[in-house]
């Protein structure tokens, strides 16, 4: 360290902090590619914030101007199509990355002691992401924006006694309208910075206990670790490249593929689309919502479906972290993943005929995974754990 930096660091230890979390931060050397998705999620978040910032410089949150301003961005603003498509495709890719990141945590038992709070912060981020994405989808003010917002905000009317008042308060009127769009824009701008705050807590908790690893045992030997920089920075850079290739292909060649054609029709409160479908990343939870015939219980089930992750560290009583050594949990995990895909698929279908049955059974299995865990983790005989990696 040169003299000036040393002088500075003694007064504000930023240099030490960077060193501490890069070249001096020990990361297990046996991490596989599944551990790339944490840093990828961070990149995805930063891309969303930067592209979003530039979009706000041209977007107009007004029911009479919003749709036109998006077209203005796509046509007239220099590189506007690029930042807008990166933002729209980026939202989907952020969810893909985060779903894989959560799935990795589930498979390798990263939620277990001493990383419960780290896990909690992750779930909080996920909730905030969903709120942000939902409000962001309203901003282009197309038909799906308007009707998606109407359907989802209406869910709050199930709150006993004060539900209707809450919905009116949220809308700022008696339907989704200009005040709603305006405040959703404000909140869509704010929430990402809250996400950044929780990400810092998430990383703080991570750096306190260090990463879990594919074997799932506590690492004690110095030789089990490598410094995060350059070993994992370079591996993450490679992972970033692999991520950016399909991302770019979507941005340039199929930016609307994950969207809905109806959102190119300006919002019209008098015309309801034939099928109101949320964005793909909400579909599994949308399927759970619709699987329950009672509206209130449906909403509760949908929220519990995610909130139950908070207590996962205590539902799973096995001391073994990694699914590699847990034959029964491994089967449960893959059952759960396939079930989650089925829920996502059925969430996009009209609620009729076989789809209703499939949605209900898949919902039952979703919750059965969590309810069975305490028992399975007790009767399961884990394989012999290795003593080191």
């Amino acid at each position, binding site marked *: 360290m040169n003299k000036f930096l040393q002088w500075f660091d003694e007064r504000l230890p930023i240099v030490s902090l960077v060193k501490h979390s890069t070249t001096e931060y020990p990361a297990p050397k046996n991490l596989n590619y599944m551990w790339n998705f944490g840093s990828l999620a961070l990149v995805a978040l930063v891309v969303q914030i930067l592209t979003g910032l530039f979009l706000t410089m041209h977007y107009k949150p007004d029911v009479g101007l919003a749709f036109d301003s998006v077209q203005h961005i796509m046509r007239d603003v220099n590189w506007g*199509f690029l930042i807008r498509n990166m933002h729209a495709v980026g939202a989907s890719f952020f969810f893909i990355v985060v779903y894989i990141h959560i799935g990795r945590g589930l498979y390798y038992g990263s939620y277990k002691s001493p990383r419960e709070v780290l896990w909690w912060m992750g779930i909080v981020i996920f909730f905030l992401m969903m709120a942000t994405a939902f409000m962001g989808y309203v901003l282009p003010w197309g038909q799906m924006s308007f009707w998606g917002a109407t359907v989802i905000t209406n869910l709050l009317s199930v709150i006993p006694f004060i539900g209707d008042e809450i919905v009116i308060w949220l809308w700022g009127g008696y339907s989704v309208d200009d005040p709603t769009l305006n405040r959703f824009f404000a909140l869509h701008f704010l929430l990402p910075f809250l996400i950044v705050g929780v990400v810092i807590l998430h990383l703080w908790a991570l750096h306190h206990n260090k990463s879990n690893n594919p074997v799932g045992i506590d690492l004690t030997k110095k030789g089990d670790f490598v410094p995060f920089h350059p070993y994992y920075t*370079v591996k993450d850079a490679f992972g970033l490249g692999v991520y950016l290739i399909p991302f770019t292909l979507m941005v340039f060649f199929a930016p609307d593929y994950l969207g809905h054609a109806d959102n190119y029709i300006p919002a019209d409160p008098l015309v309801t689309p034939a099928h109101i479908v949320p964005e793909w990343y909400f579909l599994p939870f949308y399927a759970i919502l619709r699987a329950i015939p009672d509206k209130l219980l449906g909403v509760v089930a949908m929220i519990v479906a995610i909130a139950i992750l908070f207590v996962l560290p205590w539902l799973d009583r096995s001391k073994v972290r990694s699914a590699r050594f847990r034959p029964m949990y491994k089967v449960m995990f893959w059952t759960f993943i396939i079930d989650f895909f089925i829920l996502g698929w*059925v969430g996009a279908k009209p609620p009729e005929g076989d789809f209703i049955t499939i949605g209900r059974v898949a919902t039952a299995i979703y919750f059965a995974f969590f309810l069975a865990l305490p028992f399975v983790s007790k009767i399961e005989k884990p394989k012999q754990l290795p003593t080191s990696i």
Partner: protein
Amino acid sequence: MKKFAALTLVWSMFVAVTFMALKAMFFPPHVDHGPHIEEQQWSTDGIRGNWDREQLLRGYKVATEVCMSCHSFKYISHRNLKNIGITEAKAKEMAEALDLGLNDPILSLLSPEDAKDSYGKEVPDLSVMTKARAKGPDYVYALLTHYVSSETFMTEYGKQIIAGDGQYLNKVFPGYRIAMPNPLSADLVEYEDGTEATVEQMAKDVTAFLTWTGDPLLVEKKRLGVIVFLYLVLFTFLCYKSYKAIWAKVKK
């Protein structure tokens, strides 16, 4: 043993629902997918797709001489024609023929109020029409070429659909009844390049034009996308080599 029984039950439920889902995926149940929309070939298809300028100019003629009597293209001005290689002078000349300036949006003379009086509903702007329908240009082309008389409809479908006042029958429109009268008939426009103005030809040309109004930068995006893609492949390759080099000394 009870716990095993419960697990077996959940698992057989899982197998059953997976089976049902797979069955529904490959043998869809009686869900109405709507009328079949035939896929068409477009010059902009694929990574190497490009504008067919002659076709776009023919489409422009149909759009301005036929569609524009009711529909607007508010996101498009004649200046945009420069991006398909029309000179500014020529674009200005085309604009003036319509009493428009180079930068004016292409708006119909029919006011929204009059449109509502005539058709009972607002006439949609056509700028992004090909993006606003699930099957895109294929749907727009099919719509323009599938108007039928109620007699033909009766013989083909064996059921009668009564078109109300100000309604017309179209085989691909959801619900078959559409407020827009059949806009195209043979030789409605006279193409300057001598192409025969059949209904199919005009429908094809004007749909290609609508693809352009929907996304005038479409071709530039494809070209740029290829370059960015190649750059990223190189970037990723170099990162991979660096990764292997840096990790070479780490013992497994």
